[in-house]
């Protein structure tokens, strides 16, 4: 691999990794939503 190709590979992989890590922030909100759902059910049932 030439240095240019290595740099391109790094940039592509970093872009993918950053996208994945941003996705985790959204997944955290989904998990918090699951908690909110449990609280809501509790309020409705009791």
């Amino acid at each position, binding site marked *: 691999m030439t*240095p240019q190709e*290595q*740099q391109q*590979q*790094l940039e592509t*992989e*970093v872009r993918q*990794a*950053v996208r*994945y*890590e*941003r996705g*985790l*922030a959204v*997944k*955290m*909100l*989904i*998990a*918090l939503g*699951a*908690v909110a759902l*449990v*609280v809501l*059910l*509790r309020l409705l*049932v*009791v």
Partner: protein
Amino acid sequence: MIVWKWILVAAVMAGAIPLVVASYQFLLIGWHFRRLHYARCTPYFPRTAILIPAWNEAAVLGASIDRLMRLEYPGDRLRVFVIDDASTDDTPRVVAAKAAEYPGSVVHLRREVGGQGKAHTLNHGLARILADDWTQAVLIMDSDVIYEPPSLRLMTRHLADPEVGAVTAYIKEGSRPGNYLTRFIGYEYITAQAAARRSQNVLGAIACLAGGAQLHSRANLEAIGGQIDTGTLAEDTITTLRTELRGAKVVFEPHAVVWAEEPDTITGLWKQRLRWARGNVQVSLLFRRIWFRPNRGHRLGSISFGLFWFSLLLQPVLMIMASGSLITLFFIDKSLAWQAFHALWITNLLTYVFITSFALLIDPPAGRRVWREAVMFPGAISLIIMLAAIAPVPLRFLAYHGLSHVGAYGAGGLAGGVELFTYVWLGGSMLVAYLAKVAEGRFAGRFTSPLLIYLAGYGSLLCVVTFAAFVKQLRGADVKWDKTEKTGKVAISA
């Protein structure tokens, strides 16, 4: 009396601290994308010496070396040093065969007198590789660990930043087909590796470079003395903390994935985790001057990091304390005990829902494999108690019909007995988990042991191991290196 009652309530709620702190840790993951180290990375391929300490590892070494030779890394910048700790099996022959197959890339270093432990073995290798100037970086790994092809280059690119002293990877459980225990470990590694290490990246303080995947710059190893600590059972944690204490960064690279074989019996797991837990107790004492003392030079003294460290270490004590306080309250103020019980278990349920659902989303492929064990992590009985705490009416309805059917409803003392049982359970679950260890290997242990773990919870098993480590440390028991046996069960398509 009122003051004592509230002290007891506080002690009950202390039982929720580990899960609340774990939830805080998981919340930090949402900020991980803002703390990534990639801006300071460049394509960087230092001359890397890979150190594999080996004592009777013939079953796994060959495959591990083959995988290392297939890494996406320039072949002339990679050397594998197998430090054979006086193995008595086929290890020397396997290494000799690999040295012949990959001339110049695989080196066999033999200690004729061994058995002193991993740290001594590593130091034998380090003395050799730091003696010449070929080595620019050192990767310390275990003989069973399988590296995915891009993993090493994903790690070395962080060393392009001279402020970084060491890098670690995401270790995943790789035994196939595996069993219930390896699946529990698989889930545990999502939480302890993929999740916890990300939040530690956010904090800027990593608790431990995984023993199977620790990459050091040469400068870092030399700065911490060029040797691995031999005085404790937690040599990898000591190396990590010393690196951070000297002001160097330690980075967790979550996309560099390596696979490890983990114990598939409780006896094997007990041996491994007792060593880890005892090592952590030793580290806590050894570094007692850094905890909860914020420092400009490093982040190990931050309040958050201290909470992460001690909430896990003290979990068994907190569980026993919560149970004991609930039982005491039961006898002096039943109504208050009932309210404290509800507050504790509802907190536990909410944190459990958050942690479990988020963990399964962090690593979906692993999550699909281990989701049952993720759900059962606290154990069936704790799950029922959590449901009873959050929805007592429907559960009471079910209990009424169920017990009436067998004619037991209204039996004298039954309700009080059930209530007391639920109060005891937080601490008592550890006893049941211990029974699972005792049952293994005895009559019908193949069935009763997993059954007891699914009832008591894998979490309780880990807690009772930590408790046993405290007992051993207090008794001043011998510090000896009990090696975990590896049989070559890692089967991944990397």
